[in-house]
C-alpha cells in the first residue's frame, strides 16, 4: 500500500489525515495487507462465499402503525438543529460554516 493509496482511501472514508498519520498508516496497513495475502495460499475457486454464519431469511414485522421517536427525541442528540430539522452547512453557494 502506498501513501497515495492511503490518501485516496482516507478520502473515500471521509477522514482527514495529517502527513504523519498518512506515513504511519501506510506502514501499518501495508503490514496487515501483507499478512492478509496469506489467503492467496488457498484454492477457493469452488467455494461458496459465506457472508453470515447462520442461515438468514427475510424477516418481516406486522405492518402495524406504532409510535416512533418524537421530534424532540430525534433531535435530542443533534449537534445543531432548527426544530423540526437537523442543521448543516450550506451545500450550494457560499460556504456558511458549521
Amino acid at each position, binding site marked *: 500500500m502506498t501513501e497515495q493509496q492511503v490518501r485516496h482511501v482516507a478520502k473515500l472514508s471521509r477522514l482527514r*489525515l495529517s502527513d504523519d498519520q498518512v506515513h504511519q498508516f501506510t506502514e501499518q496497513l501495508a503490514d496487515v495487507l501483507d499478512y492478509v495475502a496469506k489467503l492467496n495460499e488457498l484454492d477457493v475457486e469452488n467455494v461458496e462465499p459465506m457472508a453470515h454464519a*447462520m442461515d438468514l431469511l427475510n424477516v418481516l414485522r406486522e405492518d402495524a402503525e406504532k409510535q416512533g421517536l418524537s421530534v424532540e427525541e430525534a433531535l435530542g442528540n443533534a449537534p445543531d438543529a432548527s426544530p423540526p430539522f437537523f442543521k448543516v*452547512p450550506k451545500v450550494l453557494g457560499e460556504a456558511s460554516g458549521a
Partner: protein
Amino acid sequence: MNPTETTLVELRDAIAAKDVSAEQATRAYLDRIESLDGKLHAYHEVFAERAMERARDVDAGKLTGALAGVPVAIKDVLATQRGTTTCSSRMLEGFKAPYRATVVRKLEEAGAIILGKTNMDEFAMGSSCEHCAWGPVTNPWGENRVPGGSSGGAAAAMAADMCAGSIGSDTGGSIRQPASLCGVVGLKPTYGRVSRWGLVAFASSLDQLGPFSHTIADAALLLKVMAGHDPLDSTSANIAVPDDLDDVDIKPEKLRIGLAKQYMSDQNDPAMNEAIEKAKQVYQQLGAEIVEVDLPHTDYGIPVYYIVATAEASSNLARYDGVHYGHRTTQAEDLVDLYSRSRSEGFGDEVKRRIMLGTYALSSGYYDAYYLRALKVRRLIKQDFDSAFEKCDAILCPTTTGPAFKMGEKTDDPLSMYLNDVYTVPASLAGIPGVTLPGGFADAEGQRLPLGIQLLGPAYQEAKLLRIARCYEAQTDHHRARPTTAGAV
C-alpha cells in the same frame, strides 16, 4: 456475609432469603467501585443513585425476578436510557440513547441493578483496552498489564469484584480474551442467541453479547435472562432457550472432548500449553474420551476476520457524520468538510485504521481479491468446525497464546495486536458458542497472571457446553482465586 465476596447465584439467593438486603449489596459494590476504580478505570460511568433506588424497590418487594437485587455492570456499547452511551469514543461523547437495548431491558425486568457502564476499546475495536478515549483500563492482576479487550472494563470490574456479573460484547474474542487475561468466566453465545438490538454495531455478522462472571453457573443464569428471540432484531434466532439452561450440574453423558493440534503451537506460553494438558487430564479422569480433531484453516482466521470485520465496520461507522448525533467539528467549510473533520476529530487512530482497511477491501478493484476471498475462506473455517463436531461434543483449546501483556507493548504494532486473537476469531467467524474459564496461572517476570482455557461447542448447544465447562470447574479451584493488586475496600 460480604456481598462482594460471593458468587452471583449465592448473592441472588441470599437476597431472596433476606440474609442480606439488596440495598446492602448494592452499597457494598458501589463502595468497592469508589475505592478501586481510580486505579483500574473499569467504569466509564456509575449510576449510584438509580442503583440504590432500585435496590430499595427490591427490598420493598416492588421489583422481583431471576436477578432481583443483583448488581451488574454493562459495557458502554449497549444503549441505556440512564446516563450516556459512548462506546468509549469522543464521537459519542454525551450521547443519550432515546431507547434501551433489549438485553438491558431483560436484565432490568429480571430485577438486576445496573451499577453503571464499563470502559472498553473504542467502538469495540481492540484487544487491550488501551484504545479508550478517556484512558486505558488496568488489569487487576497487575498494574502494568492490559486487561484485554475490547470488553476490558467489564472483565476488570468482574475480576476485582466491582460487580456480581457483567455484560460484554464479542466480535472476534472481545469477551473471551479479556476474561482469560483477567481470570474470570466469559461466554460468547451462538450468533443470534442474544438480541443485538440496542448494541452499537461494529461488525454486524459477528457481534454477539454475553456475560462475564466468576462461575459457570453465574454465566448460565445471566445467559438465560439475556437469551431469546427478539422481533426487534432480524438476526435474532427464533430458537427456544432451554428451560434448564442454568442447571449446569447435569453431567453430559459419553463426553467426547476434541483437541486440535493447530491450537497447541510452540508459540504459546508453555504455561498455556500446560494448562490445556492439565484440563485434558481432568476430563480423562472424569471418563471423557479425548479425540483428535483437525481445524486446518485456523491460521487463516485472522486474515479473514480483519477483512470481514473491517468491511462491515466501514459500512456501520459511516453513520457518524456529525449531522444527526455525535461529535461535530466547529471548523467545517461545507458539508463534505463537515463529515471529514467531524469523523477525524471524533474517531481514534485504531478506528480510523479499521475504517480505512474495510473501505480498501470493499473498493473497486480489490473487492474480489480481499472481501470475496475472505468470505470463501470463512466458509472453509465453518466447515472445519462442522466436521470436528461430528467427532466431539466440545473442543478444548487455549483462549490466548499467553497471559496479559504489558501496557504499550503492542500499541505501535497493530498486526501484533491483531494476532493476539488467533484462537478466538475462528469461532466468531463460524458463529458458534465459546466459553473461557479460569484454567491456571503463568509466572511472568515475577507476576502471577491468570490463564483462560476455552471450550467451543456446536451452534445453540450452550447448555451442553456450559455443563462440560462446569465439569472442569468442579474439579479445580482456579475460579476461586482473586487478584491481590485490586486490594480490599
